[in-house]
């Protein structure tokens, strides 16, 4: 068994479907190579395990609760002028008069896209169920937030869970994202709809590799003695074996073998 065969076989195992049949060559190799046999059975178990997982879904009222929370956090803002929900995307843009025209265009496009964009239909639908009809009493500030702060293009965590496509919707449509910003004039609360949720990065190692996160820079510190003199200590982020990190190792010849 050479390593190339192992590598190719494992590549094939990785690319094959669950319960899929391997090529005869690969099967022959697996039959004779215990490492690859273990690898195959491990991969099969892993796939079966993944396949047996229940789909993870958010509670039905998750979006409602999220919006309610945002609203509650925004209640301290007494002054909520018109268009507060979608006028500004960043403070810099707010201050730049030259960008106002483009923002206005963005508003227009947002309105158009809100009605066209299929993946956000569910969000819009929920919103509409909460919105009063045309004859409703003029809304208070909370309703303003509901209508304006949660943008049409915002993908809630429920939509977002493990769905790369939904997340890419946000990044591929920056204008939609711009309108999603809630202007915050003093509250420390965060708008959960501004950007994509933090993603959990899945990285699969190549065959026969195990990867771990590691520090990327040395730990640098300095020590001051009683006389005010300082010393700098730099510890490498990664060391191998018993690499000397501190200067206190006894030489081989001065072992503890004769001290009891």
């Amino acid at each position, binding site marked *: 068994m050479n390593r190339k065969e192992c590598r190719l076989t494992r590549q094939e195992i990785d690319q094959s479907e669950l319960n899929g049949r391997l090529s005869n060559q690969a099967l022959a190799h697996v039959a004779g190579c215990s490492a690859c046999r273990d690898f195959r059975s491990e991969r099969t178990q892993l796939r079966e395990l993944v396949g047996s997982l229940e789909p993870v879904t958010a509670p039905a009222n998750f979006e409602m609760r999220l919006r309610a929370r945002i609203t509650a956090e925004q209640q301290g803002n007494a002054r909520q002028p018109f268009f507060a929900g979608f006028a500004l995307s960043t403070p810099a843009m707010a201050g730049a008069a030259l960008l106002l025209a483009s*923002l206005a265009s963005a508003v227009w496009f947002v309105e158009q896209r809100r009605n066209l964009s299929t993946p956000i239909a569910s969000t819009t639908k929920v919103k509409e169920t909460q919105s009063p009809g045309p004859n409703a009493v003029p809304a208070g500030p909370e309703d303003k937030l509901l209508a304006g702060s949660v943008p049409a293009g915002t993908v809630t965590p429920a939509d977002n869970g493990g769905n790369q496509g939904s997340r890419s919707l946000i990044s591929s449509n920056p204008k939609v994202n711009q309108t999603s910003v809630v202007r915050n004039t003093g509250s420390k609360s965060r708008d959960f709809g501004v950007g994509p949720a933090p993603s959990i990065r899945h990285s699969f190692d190549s065959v026969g590799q195990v990867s*771990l996160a590691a520090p990327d820079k040395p730990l640098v510190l300095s020590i001051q003695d009683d006389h005010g003199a300082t010393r700098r200590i730099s510890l490498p982020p990664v060391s191998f074996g018993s690499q000397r990190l501190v200067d206190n190792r006894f030489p081989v010849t001065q072992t503890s073998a004769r001290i009891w």
Partner: protein
Amino acid sequence: MRFSKMKTNLKAKNGFVIGVAALMTLSAGASAQTPAPAPAASVQTPRASTVSPQGEPEKIHARSSRRASTPPARVTVIADPAVAPQVVTIVHRLSGIKMLRFLLRQGGERDTLYTIDPTAITSDAHASIIAGWALDDGRTIAARLPQAAAEIAFQEFAFSPAELAAQSPGSPMAIRRPMMPPRSQPDLTVITRDGKRVSARYVGLDGLTGLSVLQVTGTALPLIAEAGIRKIVEGQRVQLFAPERTTPAGEEAPGVIYVRVGETDAKVANLASVNSEKQDRLVVRAARLSPGVIGGVACDEAGNTLGIVEAIEGNDARIVSAETIRAAARRVIERQASVPRPLLGVRGEPVDPQSRAALLANGWREDQLPELFEKQIGILLTSVLPGTPAAAAKLRAGDVIVRVNQDEVKSAEEFSTLLCDIGSGEQVQFLIKRPGATAPLRVEVKLAGSFEPFEYRFEMPAFAFPRGWQGLEGLGIETVALTAKVASQLGAQGGLLVVAIQRDSAAAKSGVREGDVIESIDGRLARVGARAFMLARQKKHVVSLVRDREKKQVVVETVE
């Protein structure tokens, strides 16, 4: 529903009107809304953000966000079926606070911390990659973790001879301290030669050998039956397996450190103890050795484990034998805790013709030597450290310990093994020959314990204080002193950074945590090194501390 109305209007009007209306409205809105600086939550620059109670900008937040934005490096361990199956790679990751603990204990850095990136204190600061030997039970792994000192609970540190001297002889506290498992499990990842990740927990450190013992917690490793080692002879070929950095062709990637288990050819240069039946250590010689090979696993040509590399000097590597490692693992597993090296408090050498000069210098006469050399049994004590159990038992230089309980002492290694088998804190009976004495004497000694020295010198917290006073260790706290500059970065005005909390201690029960900055205790500012910080022994102490930049007060109650 202004937004809804606007939406309807926008649809109804033509684009031009909408654009103008929107422009005007936005202008009005912008002028109404933007005179004040943007709020903290949306500002990236630290100077415009919140101000600390001391009036200093919270630079820590800005640094934190910068640090978080940098993707971490990666350590990628490449499988290699050619490696002996019992050799595993261990990645031991330590936070900044543990590295400070490591520097404090192992590096003896007791001075004040002058500068440090505050974000580094709580984040991953170091990854140590070293080989381990998976023993044939499929569960136990022995490895020479270089930062083990940062992982053991500090009450496991027994007294140094100097500290013992400060204790009253015979004090029970001076003899034994309870053994505790580590407070929090170290971040250890074990990777087998075929690239499987195995979860393991840290059981403890063996003080005699300096080896850490791990136990696999999940699926056991495959049982690897090793043949018994035949007699080791000088010149025998040996392979040393130890992880090393590599760069696979075509796989260079920034921020990725590739690791493979390297193999170094060596030959047995000499055997440490020719007189002993047990082969405790041996020395092998290679064409070239790097420090990375320390901790590596030595195997014979058949793939059987000879031992673990303990130290190197030039091209020589000293190896702790497999049998010694097994014994160390048994000790630690039996106690489920670190096992200190038994401390007697003597320096000596085995009795053999080479010790003639030492015997004569320590009171023995020439005509008495043939009898001693006849059997070559015993350990000649060349000095007795004051304040140690040996001194308390009135052992003295020139004494020859010929028997430990019922066992004859045939070599220095066997003496170590016998003491270790008995264990720290236990009573032992020596049979000694003393120059000038007509008959051998029996002496009872209660062994103390120490992790010092094996390869490293461990700095132990001071427990010896004047009557009525105690150090912070008495409350279960181990600290590093901070300058005002570092303290202010952590939101404090000065004080001591808590780097370790003893489990079940008064401090732990009161809620003091690692990473807290102690500003004062009982109203006294904590601005000096912890070693010198003394507290009156009393039932309650009020500790003012800063945690996550918030000031708190904790009452630490001690139980007599």
